[in-house]
């Protein structure tokens, strides 16, 4: 797989823009071609952007605690659009309130995400993971 295009955005009714702008900067610096669909992004917008740009991964952010509702079904939509094996990452404050991380992670992996990140993860962590996941896919 030679593309290094990724789609990033903040899902649902979420307007947290700061982390989004930092991820954009950090992944661009790390050599990726970043397609940033910004905040308030629907599942459909993520999938459409990924199909149109031939992206190898979708990185979903959710900072406002509605992640569980907003993310359900994203993998299905990818499959319907013919990009069923695209890498799906998710991170942020995924649930309402302070919760143990492991059960939350499991919920999102069961939804079809390849990786899920707890609050406070540095961009470097996901950059490294993405590079690893992409090189293994080759």
């Amino acid at each position, binding site marked *: 797989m030679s593309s290094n295009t990724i789609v990033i955005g903040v899902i649902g009714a979420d307007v947290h823009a700061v982390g989004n702008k930092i991820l954009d900067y950090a992944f661009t610096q790390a050599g990726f071609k970043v397609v940033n669909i910004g905040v308030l992004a629907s599942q459909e917008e993520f999938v459409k952007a990924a199909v149109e740009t031939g992206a190898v991964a979708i990185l979903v952010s959710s900072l406002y605690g*509605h992640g569980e509702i907003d993310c359900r079904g994203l993998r299905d939509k990818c499959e319907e659009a013919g990009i069923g094996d695209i890498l799906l990452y998710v991170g942020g404050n995924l649930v309402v309130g302070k919760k143990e991380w492991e059960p939350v992670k499991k919920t999102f992996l069961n939804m079809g995400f390849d990786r899920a990140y707890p*609050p406070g993860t540095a961009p470097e962590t996901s950059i490294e993971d993405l590079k690893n996941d992409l090189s293994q896919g080759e």
Partner: protein
Amino acid sequence: MEVVNKKWPIEKLFAQREEILKTWETGNEVADIKKGIEYQKSIPKAKNFAKKLKEAKENKVTLVQPRAGVALVNEHIALLQFLQDEGGADLLPSTIDSYTRQNRYAEAQKGIEESVSSGRSLLNGFPAVNHGLENCRKVVESLKSPVQVRHGTPDARLLAEIALAAGFTDYEGGGISYNIPYAKDVSLEKTIYYWQYVDRLVGYYQENGVEINREPFGPLTGTLVPPSISHSVAILEAILAAEQGVMNLTLGYGQCGNLIQDVAAIQTLEELAEEYLVNNGHENRQLTTVFHQWMGGFPQDEAKAFGVISWGASAAALAKATKVIVKTPHEAMGIPTKEANAQGLRTTKQIINMLKDQTLPESKQLLLEKEMIKKETRAILDATYKIGEGDWAKGAIRAFESGIIDIPFAPSRFNAGRILPARDNDGAIRLLDSGDLPLTKEIQDFHNEKIAIRGKAEDRDPSFQMVIDDIYAIGKGFLVGRPS
């Protein structure tokens, strides 16, 4: 659509509200505006936001207020009662969920239903529109203190109708402060217009003897916002609200972390707002201030979070803000438990009470900081007025188009996004890149010099990396993001 800053004839409001009340089924519950006014008049003085703020301002006391809201009515009441009784909150909120903020009432309904079936709140706030008039009144009636609606809704007309009829006595937001940081694709023409509706509605209640307080959202994106930017927006929204008949205004500011800058900001905010309101013909407005504890990233560790909360409480108390909005030790983890929320309140109140007899004394540094904030804010506001050809509404819209006002890290495409803030060597927020802000050479030089001193101390050229370092700094235990 051309929006101008001119008081709406009441018929315009009444005509429009017929449409607005149809946008969700609960709207018709508030159709008779007289009943809302009557209900408001039955609320005791102690539960009126504007009156409690007035008393606090006179006594030079800083009140404490949490953020809080959950999906279901009884749980929401229990939460607020807990914060009132166990947290000692002086003022109460009802924080609205994110679906309602985007007028997605159907999705909010789904969130309510899933919350019922799962036994935990799947919404990040209280969906007041869906719950309707009687449920909202039940909230207000269950509490001893005044309650404010806090949200982030670009089009908050229906929410305002229900909230006011239900006895909420304070309403946060504004056509700029609830658009640029909270929306991506909504034009300022639209949101200023929507909020003229809200302000005219508040003005109508006022004309009928009901004091409602209005609070533009001060911190904006909450991320390294220079005081002159948030002051400009707050004062613009104050003028727009006053024109529609709003008499009670609380203007806000989000803590930057440098004590001198924070105290200077609260003091200049009130002084400048008074000046601009009076100069625009709005006398006798009740002006109070709200200080938001650190709005950026928090440390994960609760003990460290208590440190961040306390420093915010200290700055609020020394600045003599009329109220302070409180963070919690769970901040880094998302929405807090009610216990954590009450802890944040008690920590804050301990400090507020210990410091109530103290202020930050006048110093050369404080005077300079105040002078620079005033010069900058006047430069921005005066350019806004000019580009609006003497109309503040038109001016606001054009100022954002041209970058005369520019909010860092805002999601809206109607924001220029050309300025870049960073901390100076003392931790005060300065401009690394001032974009198209209409700053004089004197002001530009001031910022450049301050940033240069830091760059020299850190032996690096100021860049976006410095900005990122500053954004993560407090979460890592520092104010200034120095290279390690």
